[in-house]
């Protein structure tokens, strides 16, 4: 028997209790089975559409039925047939199942579900995460650091050279205990078989001089090593920052909106820095410490193996304790990371929305909100620091307890003549050198925890699937004439919640089209699709006959200009903000654009003219002025396709006139798509498209649509009524004065 590919597995029964069920589509019927038993069989002959309803934490499918009086229409939703319920884990598959059934209902053809079944990890059996091709649970623990090493590959030679120099510097330092021993045994407390080369005073002086030279050489090499590592470290962190930033820029709007700006900023700046510190600074020390550890261990064993073993008695205990605390330490640092990110996000929000905060007089509330977040962070930081302050000395103490054994037993050996005083001095001095790597190892979990947390955060960004990517061999999009075609476009921000349905549109080059409809009808979504901020779920959008998925986003965005309702201005001068549209614009072009946008006049009134600096969001400019700068940007860009998204809303009539005048110049010879709530502002449009619940409900000129007396007519009438009421209120206020 062949497997039915058009089968959907659901996991809740009608009472929203867990179950194992299947909904199959075969031979024009839908068959529901729960826990292996068929419970329902529905013929699709009377079916109109398979609808996915989504609630909170669950979803369900129901079949709407054809109205016998008019098969083009569906019976009311109260007549729908409920089929099955499921948790959110199954919504994507349900949406795909609906597509297949609805295609059958529309065309009579049977398709096949295209969704990839959730992949299961062969090692642990857990479902794999979407968009990630490794099982995060089974991945090798060292993967995080191996991958980090790959990242720092270009900087590895510099790090290795710096480490090699550091090791040589350390070898110079290790000469010191040997020289000390020589001085003690030959000049300070000469042993019986000592053969001094010089007289004692002369010898001490020469030995001291030699020790100074050795020390100075060590310090000199240390400085050279540091300089190399700092340079490599800075370049590495710059490389990491840019890589993460580039990745963030390539993410789609939907991916970006899942993270707060504070979170992203912390990843780009803070985490990359932590990683640099660990990989470059600590990594270098790690190599140095390990090598020194081996060298000194050999020297100690050769000097006195019994004493050496005493030094290492407590080490295994300390290592076991460290391992035990490892997971706890990780969680502590994760918590600190999140609190820091939260405090940053709050701060960023408050500063960005400072105008709103001040106008509502909520400064005190915001201060408290940030203070609370900051205090929460401080509490965790203090706890973590205290944890270390308590743990580190204890670990260090146990680690160093062997030193006391050395003093006790070593002293005895000197007295009994088994060891010379110089050998004991050398031994104890070397102990300091061997404790250094050991103590460093005690603090390693802390560095490791910090770096691990940061690396994971960076990988999260780097591994995020780029939803909107350019094709491998893009088609050129040059000298665009500006024709736009929507071919049966369907789209939803979530695939199971369609926002646009069956959109078919043809917009001719140079045509001005007004998009009209209630809030949430899908107007902004439609222009988001033209700009390819999102890709349609099905269907295609063509510009000059080329699918926009087949051209590069750069080419596409170069041919589209947008004027939004809220104009974002960057910190910088007015000139820079206009020239943002085109890097290579000449001064004359920038001024000409400002003139055409009616912005020149107000700019010239400012004492610094085009050099006037504006803060983030251009706080010192009015809404109308910001809008005119946006129009100037669009004029300067000189695109063939222009999108005006509520470009003239919330402006006073005088300013609006100026902007309308500027817009009239702007739209000339360009394909323009304009969204406006105030329908009067669309009076110049060649054609109006009325969207209703994601579908094109009406198209035509203003007059045609008014005659039709449909949705557009009702919208116009409602607005006229509101305007009339407003005028009456204004008149009565004026007369009462």
């Amino acid at each position: 028997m062949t497997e039915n590919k058009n089968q959907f597995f659901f996991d809740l029964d009608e009472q929203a209790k867990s179950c194992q069920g299947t909904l199959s589509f075969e031979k024009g019927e839908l068959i529901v089975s729960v826990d292996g038993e068929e419970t329902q069989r529905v013929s699709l002959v009377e079916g109109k559409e398979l609808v996915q309803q989504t609630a909170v934490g669950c979803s369900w499918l129901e079949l709407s039925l054809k109205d016998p009086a008019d098969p083009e229409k569906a019976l009311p939703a109260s007549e729908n047939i409920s089929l099955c319920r499921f948790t959110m884990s199954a919504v994507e598959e349900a949406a795909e199942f609906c597509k297949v059934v609805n295609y059958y209902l529309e065309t009579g053809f049977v398709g096949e579900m295209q969704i990839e079944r959730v992949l299961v990890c062969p090692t642990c059996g857990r479902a794999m995460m979407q968009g990630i091709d490794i099982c995060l649970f089974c991945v090798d623990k060292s993967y995080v650091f191996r991958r980090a090493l790959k990242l720092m590959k270009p900087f590895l030679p510099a790090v290795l050279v710096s480490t090699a120099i550091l090791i040589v510097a350390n070898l110079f330092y290790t000469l010191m205990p040997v020289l000390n021993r020589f001085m003690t045994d030959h000049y300070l407390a000469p042993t019986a078989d000592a053969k001094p080369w010089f007289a004692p005073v002369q010898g001490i002086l020469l030995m001291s001089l030699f020790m100074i030279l050795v020390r100075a050489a060590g310090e000199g090499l240390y400085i050279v090593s540091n300089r190399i590592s700092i340079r490599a470290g800075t370049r590495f962190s710059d490389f990491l920052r840019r890589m993460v930033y580039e990745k963030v820029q390539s993410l789609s709007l939907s991916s970006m909106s899942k993270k707060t700006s504070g979170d992203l900023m912390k990843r780009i700046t803070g985490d990359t820095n932590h990683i640099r510190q660990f990989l470059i600074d600590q990594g270098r020390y790690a190599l140095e410490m390990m090598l020194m550890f081996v060298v000194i261990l050999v020297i100690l064993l050769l000097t006195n193996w019994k004493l050496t073993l005493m030094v290492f008695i407590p080490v295994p205990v300390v290592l076991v304790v460290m391992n035990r605390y490892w997971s706890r330490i990780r969680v502590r640092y994760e918590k600190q990371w999140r609190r820091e990110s939260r405090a940053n996000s709050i701060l960023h929000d408050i500063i960005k929305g400072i105008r709103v905060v001040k106008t509502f007089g909520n400064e005190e509330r915001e201060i408290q909100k940030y203070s609370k977040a900051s205090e929460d962070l401080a509490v965790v930081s203090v706890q973590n620091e205290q944890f270390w302050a308590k743990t580190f000395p204890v670990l260090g103490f146990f680690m160093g307890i062997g030193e006391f054994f050395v003093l006790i037993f070593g002293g005895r050996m000197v007295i009994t003549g088994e060891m010379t005083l110089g050998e004991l001095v050398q031994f104890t001095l070397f102990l300091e050198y061997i404790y250094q790597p050991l103590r460093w190892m005690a603090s390693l979990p802390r560095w490791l925890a910090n770096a691990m947390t940061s690396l994971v955060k960076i990988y999260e960004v780097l591994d995020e699937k780029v939803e909107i990517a350019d094709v491998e061999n893009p088609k050129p999009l040059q000298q665009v004439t500006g024709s736009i075609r929507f071919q049966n476009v369907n789209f939803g921000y979530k695939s199971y919640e369609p926002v646009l349905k069956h959109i078919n549109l043809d917009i001719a080059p140079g045509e001005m089209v007004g998009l009209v409809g209630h809030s949430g009808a899908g107007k902004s979504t439609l222009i988001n699709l033209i700009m390819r901020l999102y890709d349609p779920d099905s269907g295609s959008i063509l510009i000059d006959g080329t699918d926009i998925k087949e051209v590069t986003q750069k080419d596409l965005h170069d041919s589209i200009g947008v004027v939004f309702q809220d104009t974002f201005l960057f910190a910088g001068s007015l000139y820079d903000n206009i020239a943002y549209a085109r890097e290579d614009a000449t001064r004359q072009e920038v001024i000409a654009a400002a003139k055409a946008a009616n912005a020149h006049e107000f700019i010239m009134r400012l004492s610094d003219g085009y050099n006037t600096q504006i803060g983030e969001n251009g706080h010192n400019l009015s809404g109308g002025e910001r809008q005119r700068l946006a129009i100037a940007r669009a004029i300067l860009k000189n695109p063939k396709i222009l999108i005006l998204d509520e470009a003239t809303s919330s402006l006073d009539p005088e300013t609006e006139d100026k902007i309308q005048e500027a817009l009239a110049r702007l739209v000339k010879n360009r394909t323009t798509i304009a969204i406006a709530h105030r329908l009067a502002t669309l009076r110049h449009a060649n054609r109006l498209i009325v969207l209703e619940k994601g579908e094109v409900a009406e198209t035509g000129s203003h007059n045609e649509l008014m005659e039709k007396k449909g949705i557009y007519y009702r919208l116009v009438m409602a607005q006229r009524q509101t305007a009339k009421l407003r005028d009456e209120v204004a008149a009565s206020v004026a007369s009462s004065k």
Partner: protein
Amino acid sequence: MQNTNLDIGLLDPSVLTFYINPRGFLALKKGEEDFKRVKLTRALPLTDPDAYIAVSDMSGKEIGILKSLLDLPEEQQKLLQNELSKTYYCPTITQVRSIREKLGYFYFDAKVDEVHRTFAVKDISRSIKQMDDSTVFIADVDGNRYIIRDFAAIHPASRRKLEPYLY
């Protein structure tokens, strides 16, 4: 200054009769009017799930708001509670066996409605919310929601495992 205009379209419970229509959907008789299918939406699903429940028709037009479920007869309350439990699906976590982190994803091994289940949570600062001292909401990567109604009452071992992720 407090606003005195507080007309939010509250429904008079005495004229409401909710019933299940022949197709199994919730319907409402409001005085003489018969709404053949209605849907319920909680205004405060996290903080006050049984109060301020909007009743609307299938086109989304609000018929009115029920101030409190308790204003209805017991049998009607049960009917609405049952409907709400189907549209706000949020099973209860009774035990957290382990939380293990892998590259930013947190794998929960938990007892959910007494059934052993594993799920993954990403971006825990947004996905785990403690509403007050007692209630904790968790949302997994698929959009499923889970609730711990009384955080203080779950086993101390479970509490210790989840505590670091709450703030």
